[in-house]
């Protein structure tokens, strides 16, 4: 009887966690679609309600699990679609365990804080409703990713996070820079998503379904054991590492992170301060048992983390504005988390994520008012405080130091290298094809017009 009651409570809590961001998204979306956008106060209140409901559900789920001595609970909402003869199904399943519950509580708490901050920060901004629409897409994506019980459900959340991130970077859409940076973020995310999709399909193929339990075994996290062979684990692992590197801005995809600062401060706090940037690390944590299956994979993860940490430490030390500095400092911590995951220190990595995300959110939300407060302090004191670090430029640098400085200032030249080696040759090739096609059409046409230059 008690057992049945506990299960009912957990089902209700699980539904509450997933449904609350979905309700927020549908309500704001439908009001915009109907041409009657909700008032600012209505949006703020609804956001508060839904975030509170979701967080309450997550906390109750945790309490129920602790009270009943269980370590995980699986909520299966049925099959989204099913082809029994082909043994192909897409199950909507949510997994609440030692990894997902802390992460979802973190996600919902920080979303709540940022939502409350944004409702004041964007007061009377023309894009207020648009921001909260994208915010709700982001929150839904984070929650679904966090509690996903199948690789496809995880991919679904992952894509929602990617789209909302790119559109929030381009939030100030009448300016050119945010838009071009939004497109760059989206492009990198798309390639990362492509790798993720391939990994998901290979896993589906290997295990006959996308259930994480089929891949990682039935033992609860972090004691689960990967069920696929080490060769397959290597293939899938590499694809997932590419996906995680794109989402968490690991080397060589680090260039997008400082560019993402073009978005409003609340979204900056969500991305590189708190949640989005940790999603790649979360993915690696979730598939940690698979990484352990292959020593090569583990070394790959550690190397990626170390390389990113070195880059982030160097780049962060030469930044001249607070948001860039904070974003790269964030990257440094994320790369250390990745190293911890590579070394198999999963609990440490989870605690590191929670601590770092909370601290960085505070720093990023505080950043816009810091300068004003600093000036207010100086006005009250009546004199300027001395710069503790000194402002005299150093001139006696060795050539190695100069090279390092240039590398850090150019943010590793990652964006330039990708542009020069990948993007531009690709575009040049297709422009050539386009010219040839236009000539072919002109040749076939009666008028034989010369092709216009694109």
């Amino acid at each position, binding site marked *: 009887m008690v057992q049945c009651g506990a299960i009912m409570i957990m089902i209700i809590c699980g539904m509450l966690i997933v449904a609350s961001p979905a309700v927020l998204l549908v309500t704001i979306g439908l009001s*915009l*679609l109907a*041409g009657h956008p909700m008032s600012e106060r209505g949006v703020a209140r609804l956001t508060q309600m839904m975030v509170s409901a979701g967080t309450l559900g997550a906390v109750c789920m945790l309490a129920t699990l602790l009270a009943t001595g269980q370590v995980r609970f699986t909520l299966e909402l049925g*099959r*989204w*679609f*099913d*082809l029994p*003869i*082909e043994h*192909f199904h*897409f199950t909507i399943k949510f997994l609440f365990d030692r990894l997902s519950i802390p992460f979802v509580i973190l996600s919902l708490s920080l979303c709540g804080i940022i939502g409350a901050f944004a409702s004041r920060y964007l007061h009377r901004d*023309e894009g207020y409703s648009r921001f909260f629409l994208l915010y709700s897409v982001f929150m839904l994506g984070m929650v679904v990713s966090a509690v996903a019980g199948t690789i*496809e459900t995880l*991919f*679904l959340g992952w*894509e*929602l996070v990617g*789209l909302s991130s*790119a559109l929030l970077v*381009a939030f100030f*859409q*009448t*300016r*050119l820079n945010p*838009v*071009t940076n*939004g*497109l760059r973020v*989206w*492009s990198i995310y*798309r*390639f990362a*998503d*492509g790798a993720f*999709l*391939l990994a998901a*399909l290979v896993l*589906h*193929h290997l295990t006959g379904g996308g259930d994480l339990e089929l891949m990682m075994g039935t033992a609860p996290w972090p004691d689960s054991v990967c069920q696929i062979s080490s060769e397959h684990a290597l293939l899938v692992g590499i694809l997932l590492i590419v996906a995680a590197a794109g989402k968490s801005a690991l080397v060589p995809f680090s260039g997008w992170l400082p560019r993402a600062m073009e978005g409003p401060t609340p979204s900056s706090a969500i991305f590189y301060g708190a949640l989005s940037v940790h999603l790649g690390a979360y993915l690696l944590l979730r598939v940690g048992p698979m990484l352990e299956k292959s020593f090569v994979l583990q070394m790959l993860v550690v190397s990626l983390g170390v390389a990113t940490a070195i880059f982030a430490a160097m780049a962060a030390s030469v930044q001249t504005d607070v948001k860039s500095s904070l974003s790269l400092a964030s990257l440094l911590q994320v790369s250390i988390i990745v190293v911890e995951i590579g070394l198999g220190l999963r609990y440490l990595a989870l605690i590191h994520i929670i601590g770092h995300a909370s601290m960085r959110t505070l720093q990023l939300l505080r950043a816009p008012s810091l300068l004003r407060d600093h000036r207010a302090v100086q006005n009250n004191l009546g004199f300027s405080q001395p710069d503790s670090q000194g402002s005299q430029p150093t001139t006696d640098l060795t050539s190695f130091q100069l090279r390092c400085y240039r590398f850090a200032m150019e943010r590793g030249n990652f964006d330039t290298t990708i542009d020069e080696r990948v993007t531009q040759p*690709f*575009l040049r*090739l*297709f*422009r050539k*094809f*386009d010219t040839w*096609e236009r000539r*072919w*059409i002109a040749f*076939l*046409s*009666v*008028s034989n017009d010369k092709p216009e230059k*694109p």
Partner: protein
Amino acid sequence: MMRDLHFPWLELSILVPALAAVVLYKIRDQRFAQQVAFWASGLTVCLTIGEWIDFGTLGTFSAQDHGSLVRRLFGRDFFVVDELSAPLLPMTAILFSLTILATMRSKAGRFSFWLVMASEAIILATLSCSFATVLILLLLLSTLPPWIEMRKRGSDTRVFAIYMSAHIAMLIVGIVLMRMWGQIPIISNTAAFLLVLSSLIRAGVFPAHSWISDLFEKTTFGTALLFVAPMTGAYVVMRLVLPVVPVWALHAVAVLALVTAVYAAGMSLVQFDARRFFAYLFLSHSSLVLAGLEIATPIGMTGALCIWLGTGLSLGGFALALRSVEARIGRISLAQYHGLFDHMPYLGSLFLLAGLASIGFPGSLAFVGMELLVEGTVEVYPIVGMMIVLAAVLNGISVLRAYFRIFTGTRHVATISLSARPAERFVVIIIILLVLGAGVWPGAAVKSRYHAADILLKNRQATGIDHGSETIEPDGQSALDELLNIHEDEPAGH
């Protein structure tokens, strides 16, 4: 024995737009013509939906009209509905209806409504037809409305005429060869080759694709969209090519289609003209559909059929948004930013949502289709199948690039209101509901598409193509007979 529908839905859904075309030919008042076209197309939508529902209640693979006039006149049914065509008919009718509804009055003079209604009648007849000779005639007729419009506009028709003539000529020669000398292996192989080439041209597969971008440049956007959106090329493949062509030829076409999907996706990224951009984006998606159909595995084909429905609707919505923007500011250049979102948030939202739905974003039917398609393709060609993912990645970047160029990046100054009209808002809501509805509850669509794929593959196996050597069976006549009478008998095991 094929079952009868409870009402002559098919013939009426062809007759109504055909009659409307005749009436509209005489009407000179464009405003009135638009109203007549809208009501006629709306009635056609109702008839096709009625046909779909009625067909669903029969629980059979194929059905014919009740009390068919054609049967009385010619002694056999040219028009039948089966699980492949049942949802395609309402989808096509909806696209025509929404296109007519979303046409601005200022542009109505350049958009010939009688040609649109004639086009709708021909395409619905094509999608209902499984009789090879009539199908070829309808395919020929379907090329006339765009050609007439190009002539009326004084545009150069040569490119379109060359490609379509080649398509029809190869189709006729292929069918004639198969029918007359199909028992001789070399001739039946040649006939199969011609049929494949013909379908490649109509589907716009590389390198026979140039007519699509040319068509979008030289006709009105609406006419070009309505000519390509129902994907009649894919339908030709399903009806005429799939039943008679050996496996190696299908797989060769599948690889070509995948190459086209990636090539067109790459080309859409470098376009500076919005119409050319859309033409390549569409081509990339239609090639994905074709690739899935040619892979000829149940999962791959199910994926392709899902993408057919999903992208048909979503790219239709995407194009209608683009067309509405074009109606306000003229031909759109993607070389610069226009910043139109503040003036037309509805159209911007539709553009983005429909674009994302077309690339297989979660929550759309194309997402489900893409998963199935990749799974099916990777089974046959593990490495080549990954090109689908590459095409999807490039298309995704292309869609957002176009969105940013058209709707953001600067502040557009306009002295008049550019916001969406009530009719356009209605179109936006309908398309968003259809696209998201099919994506959120895909179960029924997937099951129906799987069933259609399964039966089509069984029909193909029944022709003997997949048994023994991978060439056409010596008895080419019987294969063609099977093709021509594909709905006469229920397949074994159904």
